[in-house]
Structures are given as structure tokens and as C-alpha cells.
């Protein structure tokens, strides 16, 4: 009998303690970020989809179409092509598309590039209902390749 009442007392006390903890938390500042009105600060190393780095002068892509990134990609989602114009020192990119639907954001392409021509973008507002929107033309960013 004694144990029965003791259990009720300790049990109620444990519930009261829990309630008290929750009540105290109710008056703390919220930790949630009110997306889309606010957005989080992305760290410098954030791995978004890839984008081409460009020369400071001229804005030409640094890429020399060596195909190393295409070969390194486990998902086979990079398609690129380049031509070597007459007398030019290196190949010039004519096509660079990323099939973002299969990209696993692993970053192996960026690591494989010996010419420092790829980087991660910080673009994460990428929701779309059209599959074509994820065929990204990195050569002419901003325009969707559809």
C-alpha cells in the first residue's frame, strides 16, 4: 500500500519536473529560422551544385575541357565539350551541362580539377516541378537549358 502511494507521488513529481522544464523552454528565444523570410548563413565550404570559375579578366571560364571532372563523376552527370581554335593556347569550352537530377553533390569533380576551374555554388533555392530545370547549362548561367 505504501509503495502504491509512493509511486503516485514520485510519478507525479517526475511529471511536474518535466512540465517545469518545458515551461521554462517556452520562454526562451526560438531557435528556428523562419524560412523563407530569413535564411541561414551558409558555411564557406557549403557543397551546392557545381559552377564554373571564371577568369577575373574577361569572364571566360577557366576550364580547359580536359574531361577529368567528367571521368571522376560517379553519377555521370557532367557533359562537356571543347574545341581548340586555330592558334589558341588551350581548348575553349563549348558545352558544359550538369544533370542535377542525378548529381549526388559529392564534390569529386571539384577535387579532380587540376585547373581550379570548378567551385560549389551556394544556391539552394532549387525547387522546381519541371525536370528540365535541372539540366543546368553552366556555360551560360541564369538561362535554363530546356
Amino acid at each position, binding site marked *: 500500500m505504501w509503495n502504491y502511494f509512493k*509511486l503516485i507521488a*514520485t510519478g507525479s513529481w*517526475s511529471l511536474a*519536473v518535466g512540465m517545469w*522544464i518545458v515551461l521554462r523552454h517556452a520562454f526562451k528565444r526560438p*531557435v528556428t529560422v523562419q524560412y523563407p523570410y530569413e535564411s541561414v548563413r551558409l*558555411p564557406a565550404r557549403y557543397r551546392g551544385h557545381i559552377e564554373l570559375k571564371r577568369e577575373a579578366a574577361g569572364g571566360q571560364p577557366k576550364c580547359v575541357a580536359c574531361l577529368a571532372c567528367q571521368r571522376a563523376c*560517379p553519377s555521370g552527370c557532367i557533359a562537356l565539350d571543347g574545341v581548340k581554335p586555330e592558334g589558341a593556347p588551350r581548348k575553349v569550352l563549348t558545352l558544359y551541362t550538369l544533370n542535377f537530377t542525378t548529381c549526388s553533390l559529392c564534390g569529386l569533380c571539384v577535387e579532380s580539377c587540376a585547373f581550379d576551374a570548378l567551385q560549389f555554388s551556394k544556391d539552394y533555392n532549387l525547387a522546381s516541378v519541371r525536370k528540365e530545370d535541372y539540366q543546368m547549362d553552366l556555360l551560360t548561367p541564369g538561362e535554363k537549358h530546356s
Partner: protein
Amino acid sequence: MSIEAKSIHRETFVINLGPQHPATHGVLRIKLTMDGEYIDDAEPIIGYGHRMQEKMGENRTYAKFLPNTARMDYVAALFNSQGYVGAVERLAGITVPERAEYIRVITAELNRVASHLLWAGAFLIDLGGFTPLLYTFDDREQILDLLESVTGARLTFCYYRFGGVCNDIDDEFVAGTRQFISRLRSRMPMYHALITKNIIFRKRCEGIGPITADVCRRYGGTGPVLRGAGVAYDVRKAEPYSVYPQFDFNVPVYPEGDCMARYRVRMDEIVESLRIIEQALDKLPAGPVMAEKVPRFLKPPKGECTFTVESARGSFGVRAISDGTDKAYRMKLRSPCFSNLSLFQECSRGMLLADALALLGSLDLVIPDIDR
């Protein structure tokens, strides 16, 4: 059983738990044969998320399989990567610089804490308590922020490489981690007051779902399930890898074997992991984080090896067989969740349905890890 006996004494019916059920945390289906409220038989049906990870490990080069490892046990992704790179490094005879090993230990233990916090919240939801999840997620987010700052991703990290890690950690990460350790330590009493001592939680866990050491042995149960059954087996101690022998930590063991024991093991492991991280930060050596002369196209010599790590859920093992080419001949992945689920059928027999859900939750299953 003869037909009469079946029809006169027992009337059983079958219900499906899952494949879409909040308590299975993924696409797991359990075919329950019920005798009223009691379970007669529980047959797990798996494979809904089967992606042929082992086969993928065999038809692509070693480096290309790296991102896949994070997609098996995605709650504790770093352990899978650690097991995989460990196996390949052993095959190819690559030595990892000490700083890289320390960084691996720090990040992996952070991942373990994050995984256990997620489990605690999700387990409480299984038992009907929603609030603790919000607190554990608050802490877990801090860890993910830290890991994101070094790895660039929040879940599928893909951070380890053959021969080291791909990014060095900076002072900001070290300071942030230290701050987090003290924050979580100061919050542990809150968790114990809110969860461990809660009468409803205790009534739902104490003595519920007993798993014995013998059952674990027969089914290969490892991790907190085994340690909650009174066996002090931890791969970090039993088969030390990486730089774990340099750290002083305990292996929490509870002999009761019930849901409460598994809960306590995990809560104690959080504290032990924090200790390991703190020691690793104190001793962090300078130096490179990547081994020199790792060939770009890895072709390990003919041979085979096994590498096992203690993941947040148990032993995760990789058995790699190389035939001297750039792709593995065989890539066997031993996932802890598969074995831990296997014992559910035997252990849940005769339990109340609601208690069986507590048992299922306490096993800490990640379904894509089972299906692979």
C-alpha cells in the same frame, strides 16, 4: 497444429506494420500475426529500399563508390565512410597521417552523438512523447552546423578520402566543438530529468523487450543492443582501429537487456563520446591531413581484407576483395541494423503490440542501412 486446435483455441489475424508507418522510420514492413493484442509472429519484410550497394561497389572504381557509403546509414554516415576507406587503405597499404586520424575520430564521434540524439528524440516519439525531440534536435543541429562547416554537407558528408580527409579543420571548428561539448554536458541533467526519470517513459521501458546476450550471439546483434544485454563488446576496444587506443573512455554496459538498458547505454555513450572528442582536441597533432603519394587511380594489389568499425548502431564491417584491377572484385558490407532487426522476430513473440513498438524503436534501425 491440427485444424481443430487452430480454429477452436486461437483465432489469429494478420496486420501489416508498414511499409509506411511512423514507427518503422522508413520503408520497413513487418507482417504481424496477432493473437488479440499479443504478437504471435512478427516477420520483417525488407528490401523496399534495396539499391544494390554491394554490387555498385563492384562495378565502379574505388573512389567512385565513396559517396555511396554515406547513403546506407545516413544518420551516422561518417562511420560507413570510415569503414570503407579503412578497408581500402588496408588493401592498398596506405598509411594515414596522424592528424587525419584524429580528425576522423573527432568527426565520427560527433556523428555518433548526433545519431544518438536523433534516436532519443525519435524513440520518444514512438512512445508518444513529442517534446524531447525538439530539444534533441536543437543539440543535433549544432553538431550538423559544425560538421557542415568542415565537410560542406549536413547529412551525406563524403568527407574521408583514401589516405586522409579532404578538408583540414580550423580553429573555428575546434572552438565551436569545445563550446558544444560544454553546452551538451550542461544539458545532460535536463535530459535525465525530462526523459530518464519520467514515470511514463520508465513504465514503458523498464522490463520491456528483454534481449539476452545469447539472442545477440545467435543473430549477430551488436552495438548498444549487445551492450544493453550486458556484454562489454565494443569494436573500438576489442579490435582497436584508428587512434582509439590513445584515448581513455569507458564502454557503458547495462545487464538488464530491456529498452531502458539500451536507452541508458546510448545516453552514456554520448557522454563518453564527448570525452573522446575533448581528448582528441587536446592532443590534436599538427601535420598534413592527406597521405602523400596516393595514386589518383587506385589499383590495390590482389588480396582481401576486412575492416570493422563501431558505428553508432553496432559493428559495421567491410570486406573487400581486390583482383588487382581498379574495381573491387567483391565488396561485402555488413550492416549492424540488419542483424539487430533479425532478432526482433524472436524477441517480440508474445509481447503486446505497443510494447513491441517500444522494442522496435529501441533497436535504433535505419532502414536504408538494412536494405543497402
